[in-house]
């Protein structure tokens, strides 16, 4: 049998039965018929509707709040204010949010102050107008650098400024001395908005002292933790049923409006649904940080980088508490012998900022790519060649290894908890285990006819009146999940009829987790894919897991799914060996739902899983047959210490030098994510990431009012998103050829590197068209402004 489950340890993807196949996602039919339910579609019997009262001020203390008129409105069931909220801080994943549900202080225009529950949304909305609030206006600050000054208005009780996060290796003074020249630049990045079309809603219901929540979330486990922290109730009394979300990109981990829903539901003792409008989603939940990058690189005449020194500031908005961005460009360009990256985060009176797709690598990564290109320009080296020369290869040291002053903890702390015996088979930590930009740059350059179109730095390959055409290449990297705050786990159950179910906390935002986890489990178990289902959102059945952030799902959750499947299979084969085959379990395997001997010469017996379990069931005093439950038997190695995924994007574009308009003509997205578990899903992640990054590069930016910090374009009319006609219809993808030693069947994370690679590719192509750099977003106006200021 060529393709057979019997070869599950094989590293040859062509031997896989279901792993690596582009099968339609399991919910495809629901998706195209509109029957897949999102949180906004959810209804619970007896539920009432909630609306949130939002602050008109950027920074204020509520000195008096009178809800009596609102409560008196017919149809209103109750109102909550900070006086009802517990005095407990809660945090979401990665310190993207830290605060109390309501605390009587508002920190950005649109911040939550109170909430009303009523029999209809309309009545709840009308009731909001009847809540009377008096404020003590506090001074406010919107500029991150101003907010860092000691005399700036303090927004958080812990102060505005977190300790700097530093990654350093070698000696920057030496790095400068070894260089033949040094180049530097400063870039201020606009804030990107996730603009989640799926919006969100939250339904919370209390039964006695137990709470159930339905909402779209990518991080069910951490959401449950948040509720536990915010309300001081045991985890056993909290159940989160996370539903699929529309594209989230970091919006829908846990959000404070969910906690307010819980508070309101407790007050009125009825299920409460709060549904956010599009404007609320875009202006009151989360956004990408505003970031300022100041970088310099030292380089030798032969194109060897000797120095990488970057100072980077990120704003956390009102409630963010992060001290870093995940910036794996550090590692991608880590061959540089000396380096120092310093991240400084600070709060501002703007809506909370935090992780959005490829956090840090979209922004700081763009700055690094540009400074590196500036070096390549000086030595007149082709940018593909410059990257091949200076970017990390497998086996080389990861610069991000030991963190310094890292709120989330360090790898050393993590390792302390793992016995030596369980770390024996781990890859070499702090070194890149597999993958790089090498294979994909070479393949991509060839497929794109890079050498044919590359005309030299700052030289368009075609000039037609005011229109110039040029190509560009950009690379990006990101981690494949991280291990702090808790590991990943999964549970796999084999049912008496031979079907199986995976329970693993993950998100569903179109990245196919309900399908790819099933592929992993099916491949490992030897059970047909059609008989394997996945539960990702119910915290009552899914063990703790980071969920879908930091490109965690395929690599880490998938690893746990495979490990749990292995354990379930072991239990199954122990039963089969003992009860029917009269052999050692190690002699057996499962293929296509049938248990048989591994040894081809032993053809009999071959019995279906169902046959074995049902045969055994009658005498199964311990109940083993009906309750095979597998879970990982050993811990996963810490991904951030060895795993990265990489993308290289090639773009061909045209700039109209009179109007500044940019037209994307052709796109090639290449990616190294190890084994591609499902190409149909993967191609979408690569192009989808490209479009997200391209949007950041060309047209997306939040506009903040200078006086109040209010977002002026929290709508899709003026927060511009790319359309089908804005992106090359023949955008292609190419996969790299690597096999991850740890990831399930060689697969690695995938969702974020493509978002990081897109912008630099466009920026470089624009440089090549115009002979000058343009900052993002490269709107027509910004291009013309740059052209005019240059002349």
């Amino acid at each position, binding site marked *: 049998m060529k393709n057979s489950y019997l070869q599950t340890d094989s590293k040859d993807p062509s031997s896989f039965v279901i792993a690596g196949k582009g099968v339609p996602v399991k919910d495809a039919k629901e998706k195209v018929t509109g029957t897949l339910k999102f949180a906004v579609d959810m209804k619970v019997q007896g539920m009432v509707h909630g609306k949130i009262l939002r602050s008109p001020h950027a920074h204020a203390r509520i000195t008096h709040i009178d809800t009596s008129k609102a409560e008196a409105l017919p149809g209103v069931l109750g109102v909550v204010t900070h006086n009802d909220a517990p005095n407990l801080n809660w945090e979401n994943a990665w310190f993207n949010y830290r605060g109390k549900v309501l605390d009587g202080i508002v920190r950005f225009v649109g911040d939550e102050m109170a909430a009303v529950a009523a029999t209809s949304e309309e009545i709840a909305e009308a009731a909001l107008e009847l809540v009377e609030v008096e404020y003590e206006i506090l001074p406010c600050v919107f500029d991150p650098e101003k907010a860092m000054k000691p005399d700036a208005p303090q927004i958080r009780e812990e102060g505005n400024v977190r300790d700097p996060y530093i990654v350093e290796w070698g000696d920057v003074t030496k790095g400068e001395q070894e260089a033949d020249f040094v180049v530097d630049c400063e870039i201020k990045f606009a804030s990107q908005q996730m603009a989640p079309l799926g919006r969100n809603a939250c339904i919370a219901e209390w039964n006695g002292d137990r709470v159930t929540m339905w909402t779209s979330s990518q991080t069910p486990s951490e959401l449950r933790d948040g509720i536990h922290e915010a309300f001081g109730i045991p985890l056993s009394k909290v159940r989160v049923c996370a539903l699929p979300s529309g594209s989230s990109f970091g919006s829908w981990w846990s959000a404070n409006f969910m906690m307010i829903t819980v508070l309101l539901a407790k007050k009125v003792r009825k299920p409460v649904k709060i549904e956010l409008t599009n404007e609320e989603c875009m202006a009151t939940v989360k956004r990408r940080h505003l970031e300022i990058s100041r970088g310099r690189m030292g380089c030798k005449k032969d194109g060897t980088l000797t120095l990488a020194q970057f100072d980077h500031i990120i704003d956390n908005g009102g409630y963010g508490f992060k001290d870093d961005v995940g910036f794996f460009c550090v590692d991608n360009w880590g061959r540089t012998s000396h380096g120092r990256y310093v991240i400084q985060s600070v709060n501002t009176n703007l809506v909370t900022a935090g992780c959005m797709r490829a956090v840090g690598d979209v922004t700081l990564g763009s700055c690094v790519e540009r400074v590196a290109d500036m070096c390549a320009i000086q030595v007149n080296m082709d940018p593909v060649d410059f990257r091949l020369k200076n970017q990390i290869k497998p086996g080389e040291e990861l610069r991000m290894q030991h963190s310094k002053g890292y709120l989330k903890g360090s790898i050393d702390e993590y390792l302390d908890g793992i016995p030596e015996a369980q770390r024996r088979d781990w890859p070499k930590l702090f070194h890149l285990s597999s993958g790089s930009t090498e294979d994909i740059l070479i393949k991509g350059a060839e497929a794109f006819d890079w050498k044919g179109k590359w005309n030299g730095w700052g030289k368009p390959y075609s000039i037609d009146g005011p229109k110039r055409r040029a190509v560009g290449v950009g690379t990006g990297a990101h981690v494949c999940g991280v291990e702090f705050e808790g590991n990943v786990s999964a549970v796999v159950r084999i049912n008496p009829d031979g079907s199986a179910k995976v329970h693993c906390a993950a998100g569903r935002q179109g990245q196919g987790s309900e399908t790819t986890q099933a592929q992993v489990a099916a491949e490992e178990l030897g059970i047909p894919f059609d008989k394997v289902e996945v539960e990702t959102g119910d915290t009552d059945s899914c063990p703790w897991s980071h969920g879908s952030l930091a490109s965690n799902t395929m690599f880490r959750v998938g690893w746990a799914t495979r490990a749990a499947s292995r354990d379930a299979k072991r239990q199954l084969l122990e039963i089969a060996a003992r009860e029917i085959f009269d052999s050692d379990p190690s002699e057996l395997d499962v293929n296509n739902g049938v248990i048989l001997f591994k040894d081809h010469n032993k053809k009999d017996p071959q019995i279906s899983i169902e046959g074995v379990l049902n045969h055994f069931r009658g005498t199964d005093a311990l109940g083993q047959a009906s309750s095979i439950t597998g879970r990982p038997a050993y811990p996963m190695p810490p991904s951030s210490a060895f795993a990265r995924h990489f993308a290289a994007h090639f773009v061909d574009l045209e700039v109209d030098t*009179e*109007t500044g308009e940019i037209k994307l003509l052709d796109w090639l997205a290449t990616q190294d994510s190890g084994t591609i578990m499902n190409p149909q899903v993967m191609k979408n992640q690569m192009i989808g990431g490209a479009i997200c990054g391209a949007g950041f590069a060309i047209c997306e930016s939040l506009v903040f009012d200078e006086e109040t910090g209010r977002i002026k374009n929290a709508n899709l009319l003026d927060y511009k998103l790319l*359309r089908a006609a*804005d992106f090359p219809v023949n955008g292609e993808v190419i996969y790299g050829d690597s096999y991850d030693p740890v990831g399930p069947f060689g697969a690695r994370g995938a969702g974020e590197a493509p978002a990081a690679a897109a912008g630099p590719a466009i920026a470089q192509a624009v440089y090549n068209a115009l002979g000058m750099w343009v900052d993002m977003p490269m*709107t*027509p106006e910004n291009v*013309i*402004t740059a052209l*005019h200021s240059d002349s």
Partner: protein
Amino acid sequence: MKQPFEYLRPNTSEEAVALKAKHKDRARYWAGGTDLMLQWRAGELDIDYCIDLTYLPTLSYVENEQGSVRIGSMASLDDLDYAADSNQLMEVIGHTARLMCTKQTRTISTVGGNMCNASPSADLSVLFVALDCEATIMGSGGSRTVLVENFFKGVNETILKDDELLIEIRLPVPEYPKEACYKRIARTFVDIALISSAVSISSTNGVVTDARISLGSVAPVPIRSRTAEQKLIGLNLLEVDDDILEEAGQLAATDASPISDVRAGKVYRQDMCKVLTRRTVEESVQKLVQKQK
């Protein structure tokens, strides 16, 4: 604060006008509603009645009459797309309509509704000005006709009196060669025009006999640059060279008074007046030259 309103459905234009005369500014004519719905949701529309025009049977035509095209005020933007084949000017109108909003919104939006909303960036309004279009208006006191150029008073303000209803836009089609062109700059494929330029040029025996140059998003209303127009009149088509185009563009830019808003800054808009005017004049002239051959 969103104020609920009552729904009224007239069956004839006369009924509609009578209802508006009765309720005055407590009522609004509601055509496609693409603008009014958003204003109401933002709490910016305080009315007691909406007068739904979409059931009026006789206002959604696009008809060719000798020497002119008559567009009913309730014709949708999509209808203009379908009517684009009738003549070279309707082709430009159709092309311009296709640049606006989305297919779905074009199906709902009406030519009249779009004009009456009087946004400074309304693409068709800018073009209608350059094409010498006329607007026919009906009120309880009778009907009148005004040049579209004189229809707009300010941002979201027209010369319509309380009860008046826009009935029809008439495009005069000339006897002698006339070509037009419309261009706009936007940030993405679907966008409100950051700035736009519409040009029409008439010629006889290869000489420019008349010209209209209008601009959008550079003033509270669509404006004409009469100085730029004068530059072209009397010239032989083949004399319209790069220098002339440059001058015309420059003159148009000086007639514009753009502001900065969330979409674009005024310096950029000012600069683009020149660029777009140059390009629209050039293309119109090229079309005429082609026609001559």
